[in-house]
Protein backbone atom coordinates (compact mmCIF):
# COMPACT_ATOMS: atom_id res chain seq x y z
CA UNK A 1 0.00 0.00 0.00
CA UNK A 2 1.63 3.29 -1.05
CA UNK A 3 1.83 6.13 1.41
CA UNK A 4 -1.24 8.34 0.98
CA UNK A 5 0.46 11.68 1.56
CA UNK A 6 -1.57 14.89 1.59
CA UNK A 7 -4.72 14.22 -0.50
CA UNK A 8 -2.67 11.57 -2.29
CA UNK A 9 0.09 13.94 -3.36
CA UNK A 10 3.22 11.98 -2.64
CA UNK A 11 5.67 13.48 -5.12
CA UNK A 12 7.17 16.96 -5.27
CA UNK A 13 5.73 17.54 -8.75
CA UNK A 14 2.27 16.62 -7.48
CA UNK A 15 2.54 19.16 -4.67
CA UNK A 16 3.81 21.85 -7.04
CA UNK A 17 0.83 21.08 -9.26
CA UNK A 18 -1.54 21.37 -6.33
CA UNK A 19 0.03 24.69 -5.28
CA UNK A 20 -0.30 26.14 -8.77
CA UNK A 21 -3.85 24.87 -9.10
CA UNK A 22 -4.92 26.36 -5.76
CA UNK A 23 -3.24 29.67 -6.63
CA UNK A 24 -5.18 29.84 -9.91
CA UNK A 25 -8.41 28.96 -8.14
CA UNK A 26 -7.83 31.65 -5.49
CA UNK A 27 -7.17 34.26 -8.17
CA UNK A 28 -10.34 33.21 -9.99
CA UNK A 29 -12.40 33.39 -6.78
CA UNK A 30 -11.06 36.81 -5.78
CA UNK A 31 -10.91 38.18 -9.35
CA UNK A 32 -13.18 41.24 -8.87
CA UNK A 33 -11.15 42.37 -5.85
CA UNK A 34 -7.76 41.63 -7.42
CA UNK A 35 -8.17 43.26 -10.83
CA UNK A 36 -6.65 46.76 -10.61
CA UNK A 37 -8.89 48.15 -13.40
CA UNK A 38 -12.15 47.28 -15.07
CA UNK A 39 -11.09 44.64 -17.61
CA UNK A 40 -13.59 45.93 -20.19
CA UNK A 41 -13.06 49.68 -19.62
CA UNK A 42 -11.27 51.61 -22.33
CA UNK A 43 -8.44 53.65 -20.81
CA UNK A 44 -7.66 57.20 -21.93
CA UNK A 45 -4.73 59.43 -21.10
CA UNK A 46 -4.93 63.00 -19.74
CA UNK A 47 -5.31 64.49 -23.19
CA UNK A 48 -8.23 62.14 -24.00
CA UNK A 49 -6.26 59.83 -26.31
CA UNK A 50 -6.93 56.07 -26.17
CA UNK A 51 -4.08 54.24 -24.41
CA UNK A 52 -3.89 51.43 -26.94
CA UNK A 53 -1.06 48.91 -27.40
CA UNK A 54 1.00 50.26 -24.51
CA UNK A 55 3.92 47.95 -23.61
CA UNK A 56 4.15 46.79 -19.97
CA UNK A 57 5.05 49.44 -17.45
CA UNK A 58 3.67 52.47 -15.66
CA UNK A 59 -0.04 52.29 -14.93
CA UNK A 60 -0.36 49.03 -16.85
CA UNK A 61 1.97 46.29 -15.47
CA UNK A 62 1.22 44.06 -18.45
CA UNK A 63 0.42 46.80 -20.96
CA UNK A 64 -2.81 47.46 -22.80
CA UNK A 65 -4.43 45.94 -25.86
CA UNK A 66 -5.68 47.39 -29.13
CA UNK A 67 -8.89 48.61 -27.46
CA UNK A 68 -7.00 50.35 -24.65
CA UNK A 69 -7.97 47.72 -22.04
CA UNK A 70 -5.65 46.65 -19.21
CA UNK A 71 -4.14 43.21 -19.93
CA UNK A 72 -3.44 42.32 -16.26
CA UNK A 73 -7.06 42.99 -15.33
CA UNK A 74 -8.20 40.93 -18.29
CA UNK A 75 -5.98 38.01 -17.28
CA UNK A 76 -7.35 38.08 -13.73
CA UNK A 77 -10.97 38.43 -14.81
CA UNK A 78 -10.44 35.85 -17.57
CA UNK A 79 -9.29 33.22 -15.07
CA UNK A 80 -12.86 33.11 -13.75
CA UNK A 81 -14.41 32.12 -17.04
CA UNK A 82 -11.62 29.77 -18.11
CA UNK A 83 -11.32 27.90 -14.82
CA UNK A 84 -15.05 28.05 -14.08
CA UNK A 85 -15.98 26.54 -17.44
CA UNK A 86 -13.19 23.99 -16.99
CA UNK A 87 -14.23 22.85 -13.53
CA UNK A 88 -17.95 22.77 -14.26
CA UNK A 89 -17.49 20.88 -17.54
CA UNK A 90 -15.14 18.39 -15.87
CA UNK A 91 -17.71 17.68 -13.15
CA UNK A 92 -20.44 17.07 -15.72
CA UNK A 93 -18.10 14.96 -17.88
CA UNK A 94 -17.22 12.72 -14.96
CA UNK A 95 -20.80 12.54 -13.69
CA UNK A 96 -22.16 11.40 -17.05
CA UNK A 97 -19.18 9.21 -17.91
CA UNK A 98 -19.02 7.44 -14.55
CA UNK A 99 -22.74 6.67 -14.53
CA UNK A 100 -22.86 5.51 -18.15
CA UNK A 101 -19.82 3.30 -17.56
CA UNK A 102 -21.18 1.95 -14.28
CA UNK A 103 -24.55 0.97 -15.75
CA UNK A 104 -22.98 -0.53 -18.88
CA UNK A 105 -20.39 -2.52 -16.98
CA UNK A 106 -22.71 -3.69 -14.23
CA UNK A 107 -25.78 -4.69 -16.21
CA UNK A 108 -23.96 -5.82 -19.40
CA UNK A 109 -26.25 -7.28 -22.06
CA UNK A 110 -28.49 -4.85 -23.94
CA UNK A 111 -27.86 -1.97 -21.49
CA UNK A 112 -24.16 -2.28 -22.22
CA UNK A 113 -24.71 -2.55 -25.97
CA UNK A 114 -26.97 0.53 -26.01
CA UNK A 115 -24.76 2.71 -23.82
CA UNK A 116 -21.55 1.71 -25.56
CA UNK A 117 -23.01 2.40 -29.03
CA UNK A 118 -23.96 5.82 -27.65
CA UNK A 119 -20.37 6.22 -26.49
CA UNK A 120 -19.12 5.17 -29.92
CA UNK A 121 -21.31 7.87 -31.45
CA UNK A 122 -19.84 10.43 -29.05
CA UNK A 123 -16.39 9.27 -30.14
CA UNK A 124 -17.39 9.58 -33.76
CA UNK A 125 -18.55 13.19 -33.57
CA UNK A 126 -15.71 15.60 -34.34
CA UNK A 127 -15.44 18.16 -31.56
CA UNK A 128 -15.05 21.50 -33.35
CA UNK A 129 -17.60 21.07 -36.16
CA UNK A 130 -20.07 19.91 -33.50
CA UNK A 131 -19.30 22.96 -31.37
CA UNK A 132 -19.73 25.31 -34.35
CA UNK A 133 -23.08 23.72 -35.13
CA UNK A 134 -24.29 23.91 -31.53
CA UNK A 135 -23.26 27.54 -31.09
CA UNK A 136 -24.91 28.42 -34.41
CA UNK A 137 -28.15 26.76 -33.29
CA UNK A 138 -28.04 28.24 -29.79
CA UNK A 139 -26.03 31.36 -29.03
CA UNK A 140 -22.50 32.06 -27.80
CA UNK A 141 -22.56 31.86 -24.00
CA UNK A 142 -20.50 30.11 -21.38
CA UNK A 143 -23.41 27.79 -20.57
CA UNK A 144 -23.60 26.60 -24.16
CA UNK A 145 -19.85 26.17 -24.06
CA UNK A 146 -20.14 23.96 -20.97
CA UNK A 147 -22.94 22.05 -22.71
CA UNK A 148 -20.84 21.50 -25.83
CA UNK A 149 -17.78 20.33 -23.95
CA UNK A 150 -19.61 18.02 -21.56
CA UNK A 151 -21.85 16.66 -24.33
CA UNK A 152 -18.90 14.95 -25.98
CA UNK A 153 -15.99 14.54 -23.61
CA UNK A 154 -17.69 12.06 -21.20
CA UNK A 155 -16.95 9.31 -23.71
CA UNK A 156 -13.49 8.27 -22.52
CA UNK A 157 -14.57 8.30 -18.87
CA UNK A 158 -17.47 6.01 -19.75
CA UNK A 159 -15.22 3.49 -21.47
CA UNK A 160 -12.67 3.34 -18.68
CA UNK A 161 -15.26 3.12 -15.91
CA UNK A 162 -17.13 0.40 -17.83
CA UNK A 163 -14.04 -1.78 -18.16
CA UNK A 164 -13.31 -1.36 -14.45
CA UNK A 165 -16.91 -2.08 -13.47
CA UNK A 166 -16.90 -5.21 -15.64
CA UNK A 167 -13.96 -6.52 -13.66
CA UNK A 168 -15.14 -5.36 -10.21
CA UNK A 169 -18.63 -6.87 -10.59
CA UNK A 170 -17.07 -10.35 -10.65
CA UNK A 171 -15.37 -9.88 -7.28
CA UNK A 172 -16.63 -12.29 -4.62
CA UNK A 173 -17.64 -9.46 -2.28
CA UNK A 174 -20.04 -8.21 -4.93
CA UNK A 175 -21.66 -11.65 -5.07
CA UNK A 176 -21.70 -11.75 -1.29
CA UNK A 177 -23.70 -8.51 -1.24
CA UNK A 178 -26.08 -9.82 -3.91
CA UNK A 179 -26.65 -13.05 -2.02
CA UNK A 180 -27.42 -10.99 1.09
CA UNK A 181 -30.17 -9.32 -0.96
CA UNK A 182 -28.53 -6.02 -1.93
CA UNK A 183 -30.27 -4.18 -4.76
CA UNK A 184 -28.48 -3.43 -8.03
CA UNK A 185 -28.24 0.28 -7.19
CA UNK A 186 -26.80 -0.51 -3.78
CA UNK A 187 -24.18 -2.82 -5.29
CA UNK A 188 -23.29 -0.22 -7.92
CA UNK A 189 -23.06 2.85 -5.73
CA UNK A 190 -21.99 1.37 -2.39
CA UNK A 191 -19.66 -1.42 -3.49
CA UNK A 192 -18.43 -0.72 -7.01
CA UNK A 193 -18.23 3.07 -7.37
CA UNK A 194 -16.18 3.78 -4.21
CA UNK A 195 -13.60 1.28 -5.42
CA UNK A 196 -13.44 3.24 -8.69
CA UNK A 197 -12.94 6.63 -7.03
CA UNK A 198 -9.17 6.91 -7.62
CA UNK A 199 -9.82 6.28 -11.32
CA UNK A 200 -12.72 8.75 -11.35
CA UNK A 201 -10.62 11.40 -9.62
CA UNK A 202 -7.85 10.92 -12.15
CA UNK A 203 -10.30 11.40 -14.99
CA UNK A 204 -11.74 14.47 -13.30
CA UNK A 205 -8.29 16.04 -13.38
CA UNK A 206 -7.72 15.12 -17.00
CA UNK A 207 -11.23 16.36 -17.76
CA UNK A 208 -10.44 19.77 -16.22
CA UNK A 209 -7.36 20.10 -18.41
CA UNK A 210 -9.23 19.13 -21.58
CA UNK A 211 -12.18 21.35 -20.73
CA UNK A 212 -9.96 24.40 -20.16
CA UNK A 213 -8.17 23.76 -23.45
CA UNK A 214 -11.50 23.31 -25.24
CA UNK A 215 -12.87 26.53 -23.76
CA UNK A 216 -9.74 28.39 -24.88
CA UNK A 217 -9.92 26.85 -28.36
CA UNK A 218 -13.60 27.62 -28.79
CA UNK A 219 -13.13 31.18 -27.54
CA UNK A 220 -10.15 31.63 -29.82
CA UNK A 221 -12.37 30.64 -32.72
CA UNK A 222 -14.82 33.31 -31.61
CA UNK A 223 -17.51 31.10 -30.11
CA UNK A 224 -17.18 32.60 -26.65
CA UNK A 225 -19.56 34.98 -24.92
CA UNK A 226 -18.60 38.42 -26.35
CA UNK A 227 -19.53 40.16 -23.08
CA UNK A 228 -17.05 38.11 -21.01
CA UNK A 229 -13.28 37.95 -21.00
CA UNK A 230 -11.52 34.60 -20.96
CA UNK A 231 -7.94 33.61 -21.74
CA UNK A 232 -9.07 32.14 -25.02
CA UNK A 233 -11.05 35.23 -26.02
CA UNK A 234 -8.03 37.42 -25.31
CA UNK A 235 -6.08 35.42 -27.87
CA UNK A 236 -9.04 35.75 -30.26
CA UNK A 237 -9.06 39.54 -29.88
CA UNK A 238 -5.31 39.69 -30.46
CA UNK A 239 -5.74 37.57 -33.56
CA UNK A 240 -8.62 39.49 -35.17
CA UNK A 241 -6.91 42.85 -34.62
CA UNK A 242 -3.77 41.49 -36.27
CA UNK A 243 -1.74 42.11 -33.12
CA UNK A 244 -0.26 38.66 -32.57
CA UNK A 245 3.09 39.61 -34.11
CA UNK A 246 3.07 43.19 -32.81
CA UNK A 247 2.15 42.90 -29.12
CA UNK A 248 3.78 39.96 -27.35
CA UNK A 249 2.44 41.28 -24.02
CA UNK A 250 -1.07 40.67 -25.26
CA UNK A 251 -0.61 37.02 -26.30
CA UNK A 252 2.03 35.64 -23.93
CA UNK A 253 0.13 36.11 -20.61
CA UNK A 254 -3.07 34.26 -21.62
CA UNK A 255 -1.04 31.57 -23.42
CA UNK A 256 1.16 31.13 -20.37
CA UNK A 257 -1.83 30.98 -18.01
CA UNK A 258 -3.55 28.28 -20.10
CA UNK A 259 -0.31 26.29 -20.26
CA UNK A 260 0.48 26.59 -16.55
CA UNK A 261 -3.04 25.74 -15.47
CA UNK A 262 -3.19 22.64 -17.67
CA UNK A 263 0.26 21.59 -16.47
CA UNK A 264 -0.78 22.03 -12.83
CA UNK A 265 -3.75 19.73 -13.34
CA UNK A 266 -1.67 17.12 -15.15
CA UNK A 267 0.92 17.16 -12.36
CA UNK A 268 -1.84 16.45 -9.84
CA UNK A 269 -3.28 13.75 -12.10
CA UNK A 270 0.09 12.04 -12.29
CA UNK A 271 0.04 11.52 -8.54
CA UNK A 272 -3.54 10.33 -8.53
CA UNK A 273 -2.63 7.89 -11.25
CA UNK A 274 -0.19 6.29 -8.82
CA UNK A 275 -3.15 5.57 -6.55
CA UNK A 276 -5.44 4.43 -9.36
CA UNK A 277 -2.79 2.18 -10.81
CA UNK A 278 -0.34 1.25 -8.03
CA UNK A 279 1.80 -0.81 -10.38
CA UNK A 280 3.16 2.46 -11.81
CA UNK A 281 4.71 3.27 -8.42
CA UNK A 282 8.19 2.04 -7.79
Amino acid sequence: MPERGFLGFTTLSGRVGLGLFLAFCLIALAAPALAPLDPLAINYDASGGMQRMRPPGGDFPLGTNYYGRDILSQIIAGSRVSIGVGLLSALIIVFIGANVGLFAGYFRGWVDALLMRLTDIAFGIPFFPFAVLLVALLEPSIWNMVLTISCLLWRSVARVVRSQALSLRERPYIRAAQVAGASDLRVMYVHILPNLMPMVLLYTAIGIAYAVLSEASLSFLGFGDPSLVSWGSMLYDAYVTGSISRAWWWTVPPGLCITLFVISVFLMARDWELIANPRLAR
Partner: protein
Amino acid sequence: MPAEPILRFDAVEKRFHARGKRVDAVRGVSFDLVPGRVLGIVGQSGSGKSTLANMMVRAETPSAGRILFSGADLATLRGAGLKGFRRAVQMIFQDPFGSLNPRFAVGRTVAEPLLIHGLGASAERRDRAAAALEAAELRPGAAFLDKLPHELSGGQRQRVAIARALVLGPRALVADEPVSMLDMSARAGVIRLLRRLVEEEGLALAFITHDLSLIGGFCDEVAVMLEGAFIERGTPEAILTRPQHDYTRRLIAAIPVP
Protein backbone atom coordinates in the same frame (compact mmCIF):
# COMPACT_ATOMS: atom_id res chain seq x y z
CA MET B 1 -38.40 -38.67 11.70
CA PRO B 2 -36.23 -36.20 9.75
CA ALA B 3 -36.98 -32.51 9.96
CA GLU B 4 -38.68 -30.64 7.13
CA PRO B 5 -36.07 -29.72 4.47
CA ILE B 6 -35.28 -26.02 4.02
CA LEU B 7 -34.23 -26.42 0.43
CA ARG B 8 -35.28 -29.28 -1.83
CA PHE B 9 -33.72 -29.83 -5.24
CA ASP B 10 -36.01 -31.85 -7.47
CA ALA B 11 -34.41 -33.18 -10.69
CA VAL B 12 -32.68 -29.85 -11.26
CA GLU B 13 -30.87 -29.22 -14.53
CA LYS B 14 -28.82 -26.24 -15.64
CA ARG B 15 -27.68 -25.70 -19.20
CA PHE B 16 -25.52 -22.92 -20.56
CA HIS B 17 -25.24 -21.94 -24.18
CA ALA B 18 -21.92 -20.52 -25.25
CA ARG B 19 -21.20 -19.82 -28.90
CA GLY B 20 -23.79 -22.29 -30.07
CA LYS B 21 -22.36 -25.03 -27.87
CA ARG B 22 -24.54 -26.49 -25.15
CA VAL B 23 -22.99 -27.17 -21.77
CA ASP B 24 -24.90 -29.32 -19.28
CA ALA B 25 -23.49 -27.97 -16.03
CA VAL B 26 -25.98 -29.74 -13.74
CA ARG B 27 -27.93 -32.82 -14.79
CA GLY B 28 -30.89 -34.16 -12.89
CA VAL B 29 -29.75 -33.47 -9.34
CA SER B 30 -32.09 -34.09 -6.39
CA PHE B 31 -31.36 -33.64 -2.69
CA ASP B 32 -32.65 -32.05 0.50
CA LEU B 33 -30.93 -29.57 2.79
CA VAL B 34 -32.15 -30.54 6.25
CA PRO B 35 -31.69 -28.59 9.53
CA GLY B 36 -28.91 -29.95 11.71
CA ARG B 37 -27.29 -31.92 8.93
CA VAL B 38 -24.28 -31.42 6.68
CA LEU B 39 -24.46 -32.46 3.06
CA GLY B 40 -21.02 -32.74 1.50
CA ILE B 41 -20.80 -32.32 -2.26
CA VAL B 42 -17.49 -33.54 -3.67
CA GLY B 43 -16.21 -33.16 -7.19
CA GLN B 44 -13.36 -31.84 -9.25
CA SER B 45 -13.40 -28.40 -10.80
CA GLY B 46 -15.78 -28.28 -13.74
CA SER B 47 -18.05 -30.91 -12.21
CA GLY B 48 -20.85 -28.36 -11.81
CA LYS B 49 -20.66 -27.96 -8.05
CA SER B 50 -20.30 -24.19 -8.14
CA THR B 51 -23.26 -23.89 -10.50
CA LEU B 52 -25.16 -25.99 -8.00
CA ALA B 53 -24.10 -23.65 -5.19
CA ASN B 54 -25.19 -20.63 -7.23
CA MET B 55 -28.62 -22.18 -7.72
CA MET B 56 -28.91 -22.84 -3.96
CA VAL B 57 -28.66 -19.08 -3.32
CA ARG B 58 -30.61 -18.14 -6.45
CA ALA B 59 -27.68 -16.53 -8.20
CA GLU B 60 -28.77 -18.82 -11.05
CA THR B 61 -32.13 -20.37 -11.82
CA PRO B 62 -32.56 -23.94 -13.07
CA SER B 63 -33.18 -24.69 -16.75
CA ALA B 64 -35.41 -27.60 -15.73
CA GLY B 65 -36.61 -29.18 -12.51
CA ARG B 66 -37.60 -27.29 -9.38
CA ILE B 67 -36.00 -25.89 -6.27
CA LEU B 68 -38.41 -25.71 -3.35
CA PHE B 69 -37.83 -23.31 -0.46
CA SER B 70 -40.15 -24.18 2.43
CA GLY B 71 -42.45 -25.71 -0.16
CA ALA B 72 -42.50 -22.75 -2.58
CA ASP B 73 -40.86 -22.75 -6.00
CA LEU B 74 -37.72 -20.65 -5.62
CA ALA B 75 -37.71 -19.47 -9.24
CA THR B 76 -41.08 -17.75 -8.82
CA LEU B 77 -40.36 -16.01 -5.50
CA ARG B 78 -40.68 -12.23 -5.63
CA GLY B 79 -40.77 -9.33 -3.19
CA ALA B 80 -41.24 -10.31 0.43
CA GLY B 81 -40.94 -14.02 -0.33
CA LEU B 82 -37.57 -13.48 -1.98
CA LYS B 83 -36.39 -11.29 0.89
CA GLY B 84 -37.37 -14.06 3.28
CA PHE B 85 -35.30 -16.49 1.23
CA ARG B 86 -32.32 -14.11 1.22
CA ARG B 87 -32.46 -13.99 4.99
CA ALA B 88 -32.82 -17.77 5.36
CA VAL B 89 -30.08 -18.99 3.02
CA GLN B 90 -26.62 -17.48 3.12
CA MET B 91 -23.39 -18.30 1.38
CA ILE B 92 -19.73 -18.57 2.35
CA PHE B 93 -17.23 -18.16 -0.46
CA GLN B 94 -13.96 -19.77 -1.31
CA ASP B 95 -11.72 -16.72 -1.39
CA PRO B 96 -11.59 -14.98 2.00
CA PHE B 97 -9.45 -12.25 0.45
CA GLY B 98 -11.86 -11.38 -2.34
CA SER B 99 -15.12 -11.88 -0.49
CA LEU B 100 -14.65 -8.86 1.79
CA ASN B 101 -14.85 -5.33 0.35
CA PRO B 102 -11.32 -3.99 0.95
CA ARG B 103 -12.66 -0.51 1.79
CA PHE B 104 -15.16 -1.65 4.42
CA ALA B 105 -14.29 -2.15 8.07
CA VAL B 106 -15.30 -5.54 9.45
CA GLY B 107 -18.24 -4.07 11.35
CA ARG B 108 -19.66 -2.51 8.19
CA THR B 109 -19.25 -5.72 6.18
CA VAL B 110 -20.95 -7.84 8.84
CA ALA B 111 -23.75 -5.33 9.48
CA GLU B 112 -24.48 -4.72 5.81
CA PRO B 113 -27.05 -7.53 5.43
CA LEU B 114 -28.96 -5.94 8.35
CA LEU B 115 -28.86 -2.58 6.58
CA ILE B 116 -30.06 -4.17 3.33
CA HIS B 117 -32.98 -5.77 5.11
CA GLY B 118 -33.70 -2.63 7.12
CA LEU B 119 -33.18 -4.30 10.49
CA GLY B 120 -32.33 -2.36 13.62
CA ALA B 121 -30.94 1.12 14.27
CA SER B 122 -27.27 1.86 13.73
CA ALA B 123 -26.14 1.06 17.29
CA GLU B 124 -28.23 -2.11 17.37
CA ARG B 125 -26.77 -3.26 14.06
CA ARG B 126 -23.30 -2.77 15.51
CA ASP B 127 -24.19 -4.87 18.54
CA ARG B 128 -25.61 -7.61 16.35
CA ALA B 129 -22.49 -7.52 14.16
CA ALA B 130 -20.33 -7.92 17.26
CA ALA B 131 -22.52 -10.83 18.39
CA ALA B 132 -22.22 -12.47 14.97
CA LEU B 133 -18.44 -12.10 15.11
CA GLU B 134 -18.47 -13.84 18.50
CA ALA B 135 -20.64 -16.60 17.06
CA ALA B 136 -17.96 -16.99 14.40
CA GLU B 137 -15.42 -17.27 17.24
CA LEU B 138 -13.76 -13.90 16.77
CA ARG B 139 -13.55 -12.77 20.38
CA PRO B 140 -14.13 -10.19 21.61
CA GLY B 141 -16.30 -9.35 18.62
CA ALA B 142 -16.33 -5.62 19.36
CA ALA B 143 -12.52 -5.50 18.99
CA PHE B 144 -12.80 -6.58 15.34
CA LEU B 145 -15.50 -4.12 14.26
CA ASP B 146 -13.15 -1.35 13.17
CA LYS B 147 -10.46 -3.51 11.59
CA LEU B 148 -9.95 -3.52 7.84
CA PRO B 149 -9.69 -6.83 5.96
CA HIS B 150 -5.99 -6.40 5.22
CA GLU B 151 -5.27 -6.38 8.94
CA LEU B 152 -6.64 -9.91 9.34
CA SER B 153 -5.30 -13.39 8.60
CA GLY B 154 -6.98 -15.65 6.06
CA GLY B 155 -8.69 -17.68 8.77
CA GLN B 156 -9.95 -14.53 10.49
CA ARG B 157 -11.28 -13.19 7.21
CA GLN B 158 -13.17 -16.38 6.57
CA ARG B 159 -14.68 -16.08 10.04
CA VAL B 160 -15.73 -12.51 9.20
CA ALA B 161 -17.41 -13.93 6.08
CA ILE B 162 -19.12 -16.53 8.26
CA ALA B 163 -20.24 -13.81 10.68
CA ARG B 164 -21.74 -11.89 7.74
CA ALA B 165 -23.60 -15.06 6.75
CA LEU B 166 -24.82 -15.59 10.33
CA VAL B 167 -25.92 -12.05 11.15
CA LEU B 168 -29.37 -12.43 9.58
CA GLY B 169 -30.02 -15.60 11.56
CA PRO B 170 -30.16 -17.92 8.53
CA ARG B 171 -31.49 -21.47 8.52
CA ALA B 172 -29.14 -22.78 5.87
CA LEU B 173 -25.58 -22.06 4.79
CA VAL B 174 -24.02 -22.85 1.44
CA ALA B 175 -20.25 -23.10 1.75
CA ASP B 176 -18.43 -23.25 -1.58
CA GLU B 177 -14.87 -24.50 -0.91
CA PRO B 178 -14.72 -22.48 2.32
CA VAL B 179 -11.35 -23.81 3.49
CA SER B 180 -9.46 -24.56 0.30
CA MET B 181 -7.58 -21.28 0.44
CA LEU B 182 -6.76 -21.49 4.15
CA ASP B 183 -3.69 -23.03 5.71
CA MET B 184 -4.00 -26.33 7.58
CA SER B 185 -4.41 -24.97 11.11
CA ALA B 186 -7.05 -22.44 10.06
CA ARG B 187 -8.91 -25.17 8.12
CA ALA B 188 -9.50 -27.36 11.15
CA GLY B 189 -10.77 -24.35 13.13
CA VAL B 190 -13.23 -23.24 10.45
CA ILE B 191 -14.52 -26.80 9.99
CA ARG B 192 -15.04 -27.21 13.75
CA LEU B 193 -16.90 -23.89 13.79
CA LEU B 194 -19.21 -24.94 10.94
CA ARG B 195 -19.91 -28.30 12.61
CA ARG B 196 -20.72 -26.55 15.90
CA LEU B 197 -23.12 -24.15 14.14
CA VAL B 198 -24.92 -27.12 12.58
CA GLU B 199 -25.19 -29.00 15.87
CA GLU B 200 -25.96 -26.12 18.22
CA GLU B 201 -27.95 -23.77 16.00
CA GLY B 202 -29.57 -26.47 13.89
CA LEU B 203 -28.37 -24.93 10.63
CA ALA B 204 -28.53 -26.87 7.41
CA LEU B 205 -25.16 -26.86 5.66
CA ALA B 206 -24.18 -27.63 2.10
CA PHE B 207 -20.42 -28.12 2.12
CA ILE B 208 -18.91 -28.09 -1.33
CA THR B 209 -15.34 -29.23 -1.82
CA HIS B 210 -12.94 -30.95 -4.18
CA ASP B 211 -11.11 -32.52 -1.25
CA LEU B 212 -12.49 -35.86 -0.10
CA SER B 213 -10.21 -35.83 2.95
CA LEU B 214 -12.29 -33.02 4.50
CA ILE B 215 -15.57 -34.89 4.70
CA GLY B 216 -14.60 -37.70 7.09
CA GLY B 217 -15.94 -36.81 10.52
CA PHE B 218 -17.76 -33.74 9.33
CA CYS B 219 -20.53 -34.55 6.86
CA ASP B 220 -23.69 -36.55 7.56
CA GLU B 221 -24.12 -37.40 3.93
CA VAL B 222 -21.83 -37.13 0.93
CA ALA B 223 -22.67 -36.85 -2.75
CA VAL B 224 -19.97 -37.34 -5.37
CA MET B 225 -20.49 -35.16 -8.40
CA LEU B 226 -19.14 -35.87 -11.88
CA GLU B 227 -20.02 -34.01 -15.06
CA GLY B 228 -23.04 -32.37 -13.51
CA ALA B 229 -24.66 -35.43 -11.93
CA PHE B 230 -24.53 -37.13 -8.52
CA ILE B 231 -22.89 -40.47 -9.28
CA GLU B 232 -22.72 -41.78 -5.76
CA ARG B 233 -24.27 -40.90 -2.41
CA GLY B 234 -23.99 -42.20 1.09
CA THR B 235 -22.52 -41.69 4.53
CA PRO B 236 -18.87 -40.64 4.59
CA GLU B 237 -17.93 -44.07 5.98
CA ALA B 238 -19.67 -45.88 3.13
CA ILE B 239 -18.15 -43.61 0.50
CA LEU B 240 -14.65 -43.84 1.95
CA THR B 241 -14.62 -47.56 2.69
CA ARG B 242 -16.88 -49.03 0.00
CA PRO B 243 -16.80 -46.69 -3.00
CA GLN B 244 -19.00 -48.00 -5.79
CA HIS B 245 -17.80 -45.83 -8.59
CA ASP B 246 -14.43 -45.75 -10.29
CA TYR B 247 -14.27 -41.98 -10.09
CA THR B 248 -14.84 -42.07 -6.32
CA ARG B 249 -12.03 -44.62 -5.97
CA ARG B 250 -9.73 -42.30 -7.89
CA LEU B 251 -10.68 -39.37 -5.62
CA ILE B 252 -9.93 -41.49 -2.55
CA ALA B 253 -6.62 -42.57 -4.02
CA ALA B 254 -5.79 -38.91 -4.51
CA ILE B 255 -6.08 -38.15 -0.77
CA PRO B 256 -2.55 -37.53 0.46
CA VAL B 257 -1.52 -40.03 3.14
CA PRO B 258 -0.74 -38.05 6.29
